[in-house]
């Protein structure tokens, strides 16, 4: 028994077993179930076991699918661009321009606190800003910039992307800041000593060394945006669609097999993107 406990495989598995149980029951089995159900048939009221390719045939045969996937990629790419630029700048300021560790931690916490509050509330809170009679419109009118309220501020692609950037920028800030804090400061001094300008140091030293953080942040942002359905629904006023909304609409109509087929395609796409991004970074080394 003692020897058995000393065996690292046995002790490893004993410690990891609760984790494994949760992951199998609530991740692996649900994914398997979705894959199985994606081949099932559906009537208006119920679903029945079968082995049909109808759901996939319908999915790939419909032009809606392609435009919705295109829309999803569009949101992901634009949000990624904004969160990267904003997140990098914020992290750079915190890591290299704030000098005392106490201030760094305090300001860093200020950036992360919204992460622990409700996303839905944070979305709702844009309404008084962006609405027809909202702060943005009334301010712009009072400044004389516009004569009539802008209609595209709320319930448009603009507000969707604004909300995404608002919700997810800190997923860029945290990993990038974490990587930057580990950069050996003498490397930067060496760059300056060799006559590099601030910009050259940034592009030739800091950005390459920050790449792992950028990759991890990108993984977060891209997957969160691609899997989202609630932000798009709420901020577009149900006028735009992404893949997540396609799935949730099918669910609302009790068309589970069709929802499952879309889910399988979405999951494959997301995992493919992650696999590509993971080629650039070794997550376990970065923790």
């Amino acid at each position, binding site marked *: 028994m003692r020897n058995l406990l000393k065996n*690292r*495989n046995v*002790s*490893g*598995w004993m*410690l*990891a077993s*609760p*984790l*494994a149980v*949760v*992951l199998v029951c*609530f991740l*692996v089995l*649900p*994914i398997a*179930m*979705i894959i199985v*159900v994606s081949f099932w048939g559906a009537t208006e009221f119920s679903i029945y076991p079968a082995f049909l390719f109808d759901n996939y045939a319908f999915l790939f045969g419909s032009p809606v699918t392609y435009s919705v996937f295109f829309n999803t990629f569009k949101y992901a790419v634009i949000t990624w661009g904004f969160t990267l630029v904003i997140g990098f*700048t*914020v992290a750079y*300021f915190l890591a290299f*321009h704030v000098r005392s560790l106490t201030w760094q931690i305090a*300001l860093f916490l*200020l950036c992360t*606190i919204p992460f*622990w*509050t*409700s*996303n*839905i*509330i*944070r979305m*709702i*809170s*844009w309404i*008084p*800003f962006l609405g027809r009679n*909202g*702060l943005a419109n*009334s301010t712009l009118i009072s400044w004389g910039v516009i004569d009539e309220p802008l209609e595209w501020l709320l319930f448009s692609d603009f507000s969707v992307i604004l909300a995404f950037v*608002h919700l997810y*920028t800190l997923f860029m800030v945290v990993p990038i800041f974490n990587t930057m804090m580990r950069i050996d*400061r003498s490397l930067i001094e060496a760059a300056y000593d060799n006559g590099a300008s*601030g910009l050259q140091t940034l592009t030739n030293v800091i950005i390459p060394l920050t790449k792992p953080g950028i990759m991890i942040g990108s*993984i977060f942002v891209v*997957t969160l945006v*691609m*899997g989202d359905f609630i932000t798009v629904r709420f901020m577009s006023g149900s006028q735009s669609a992404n893949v*997540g909304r396609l*799935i949730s609409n099918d*669910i609302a109509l009790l068309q*589970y097999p069709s*929802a*499952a087929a879309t*889910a399988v395609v979405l999951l494959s796409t*997301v995992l493919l993107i*992650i696999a590509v991004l993971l080629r650039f970074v070794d997550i*376990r080394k970065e*923790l």
Partner: protein
Amino acid sequence: MTGKRPRSFYLLAAFFALFLLFLYGPTLTIAILSFQGPDGGLTFPMRGVSTHWFADLFREQAVGDIWGSFSRSLVLGVMVMLTTVVVSVMGGLAFRKRFVGSTVIFYLVITSLVIPSILVSLGVGLIFSQSGLNVHWSTSGFGSQLTWTLPFGLLIMFAVFNRFDRSFEEAARDQGASAWQTVRHVVLPIIAPSLIGVALFGFTLSYDEFARTLLTSGSYNTLPLEIYGMTTNVTTPVIFALGTLTTLFSLGVIAIFLLSVWVQSRRRARHGSDAGQGMV
């Protein structure tokens, strides 16, 4: 890097201030608007100042089952928090050595983190409905939320154990401590501040979780689901009042957690140990 600050500092500081305004501005706006007078609407101008909409929350018939859903979210949050801490610590300990299948579990954890939430909701919902079980927030909802909180807890534990000085454990073992005694009296006290962090993630991510609970909570809503339901049929500032209260509650919880980390590190500093001083 001493002396006068470069001009770029001021530019970046201004950018940072704008970023904070962007982060917190909208929330502050609805906090102000929740004090609208009884005739006020969802946007400015303020038509008087009152606590009318907060009072509305306490009137049973005015809005849905807010207090019921709040207490469910609270209980669920505590359940998820405790489970996340225990399972993450065990998982973190397990991953300190490679074992057969550890890579598989690691990639499952990553998958759990990046999988679109609605898929977990859909899959768990389907399993329960097809096997004739009733979905309930304390069973299916609980499990679904763990797939979101556990990856965060584990990533924190990985980070902690990557920086862990093993000589403390070796010292304990050399003095005859058993494996359990080493964990109980040496490892756990050293990683305690990080456990508060894991608990913070566990509770708040559960308390605010929406997508993974959507199809798995059954007929009794959690608070985020209740709020989501309100967005479609409530057009008064009562929703801002609710938003303000639940945000204040979250901030209170965060403050308690951060404060206890601070108190712990102070106490530790007094006792003169330098363990756990690395940044996570």
